[in-house]
């Protein structure tokens, strides 16, 4: 799997490169600013790009903007954004084109290599990886909202994992239950929230996130 990395801090850039190489990824380019990222994606057409939000020269949301530009130039390029903070507006902007292959994770998540690598693969395959903290923020805002409060604690947990972009199998593994049990929870949740059932994982994530964002 071919990867492009954009990260301005050499320490993190080298660390990420090493981590991904250890896991069998092919890091084809590791750049340090937004313009180089766009160029690298156009040249290499990688399977996934891993991008820090804050890049020179502005050190604001350069990474997001470069990623959006790159996805216009090379449609469908999966992008995983890493950030020190969760800002749900940025996640929404990335998801807005509906093309899938989007991830938005806290930088902390690299501390757990196996989960991080699983998220990278999910994004590369066109799925979604939304940080649990971003999901928790969305939930916190909807507290007191009728249909959401009617979910059982287990269902709320499943909904959270769905919003993160996990597949049924992934949810079952996380909660240590069978896939059948997960499916039952999911159909109950979709029923309570009035969302359409869909076999397409990606479309399901979008529907859930759209619902949570109100």
């Amino acid at each position: 799997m071919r990867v492009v990395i954009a990260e301005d801090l050499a320490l993190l850039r080298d660390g990420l490169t090493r981590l991904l190489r250890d896991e069998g990824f092919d890091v084809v380019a590791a750049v340090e600013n937004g313009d180089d990222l766009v160029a690298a994606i156009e040249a290499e057409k990688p399977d996934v790009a891993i991008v820090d939000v804050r890049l020179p020269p502005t050190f604001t949301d350069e990474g997001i903007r470069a990623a959006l530009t790159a996805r216009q130039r090379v449609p469908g390029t999966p992008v995983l954004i890493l950030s020190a903070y969760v800002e749900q507006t940025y996640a929404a902007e990335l998801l807005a084109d509906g093309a899938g292959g989007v991830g938005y994770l806290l930088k902390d998540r690299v501390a757990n290599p196996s989960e991080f690598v699983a998220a990278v693969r999910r994004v590369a395959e066109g799925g979604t990886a939304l940080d649990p903290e971003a999901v928790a923020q969305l939930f916190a805002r909807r507290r007191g909202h009728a249909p959401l409060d009617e979910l059982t604690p287990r269902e709320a947990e499943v909904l959270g994992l769905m919003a993160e972009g996990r597949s049924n199998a992934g949810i079952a593994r996380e909660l240590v239950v069978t896939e059948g049990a997960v499916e039952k929870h999911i159909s109950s949740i979709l029923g309570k929230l009035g969302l359409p059932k869909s076999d397409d994982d990606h479309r399901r994530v979008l529907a859930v996130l759209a619902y949570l964002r109100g």
Partner: protein
Amino acid sequence: MDAGGRVTDPVHVTAATLELPPERRSRLRYPITAQFRRDLAYMFMTLATSILAFTVVVGGLSIAVSFAILIVGIPVVVGVAYVNRGVTAMQRRLTGWQRGERIVAVYKRPSERGFIPRIMAVLTDPQTWRDLAWLCFDALIGFVFSIVTVTLWGVVVGSLFLPAWWWSMPSDAEYLGFVLDNTTESLLGMALGVVLLPLAIALTRLLAVTHGRAAAALLGPGSRQRVEELTESRAGAVDVAHAELQRIERDLHDGAQARLVALAMDLGRAESKVGEDPEAGRELIGEAREEALRALGELRELVRGIGPSILRDRGLEAAIASLATGRAQPVDFRVDVGEPRPPATVEAAAYFVVAESIANAAKHSGARRLTVRVWRDAADRIVVECSDDGHGGADPAAGSGLTGLMQRVRALDGTLTVTSPAGGPTTVRAEIPCA
């Protein structure tokens, strides 16, 4: 008054609030005809206020002087000063309305509770004497101005309608120097009215502007008071900055720093264990990783208190939009602060006012919807107004986040007013100067 109670301190309550909605912002505060109506009404009302001012000055001074030789004279003088404050408060409102701006009263606050400090505060307050100077000005100059205006308009209106009423005059009556005895002459009078009309309009504007300017100069904060207020809020700012630094230092010391120490310790133990007992070594490494993650989490919390990343990245509108989305109670917001971007501290203060108001409304007020308006007024202040349809009763003194907001806003020389009558609605309004 304590820090929380300052929310309702007299400085903010006596201030006439008159703000322009964001969509109307021009050099002339109002369209010409509207401004003219205001000027005219203002000058007519000045007739009343100047007579009132005269009464208060003459009455008040004579009472004060006759009592001043006795000790009881001092409270009487103070009482007179308070009456003056009532009259000038009304004048601030009136002039504020005419000028389309807010004229803020800055009176010295008593340094402590009690009768004597209160008297001292009144007597040593330069604004007390500026109030008196204003009343004298209004009683004399204001009276002359308004008499001129009223007379001139009487002549203009009378002349314009002369053909309709000249016949009712005695046959040898003179009108403005000529004897009125036929319709032609009355038409001449009417022509005179037409000529005088623009003069009357111009003079009304001139007198209203002059009178209004004098009122704003004497009744608004003077340069020395400005300095005192600034020193006071600067001191507040230093306090706030210092308290912030202490908080950050403490948070770092108790949080991330302690976690990193524990992390280094775990790693050290793992290093010595890894040869003899690889399993225990692995466990320690796992613990070290958890410790590092907790340190990261704490650092993130710490930085969030300074302001969210989207505010630095994209400014107030995007940050408030981000706050408003996905709420259980819909937030109707309109943000228009224009260019250039306000200073970062002002943006952060405005942001936290909105964030706190939304959080409070969601938690306490039982509100079903919220309205947030943020704009830049003519005086280059960022005005934040958050209102909800909840049941009110918010008490800023009750140690809520409002007290912290108050300090944040005051440190920037701004004001924060919370109106929350029992039964609602609650409105939080902040005005923060950009410069």
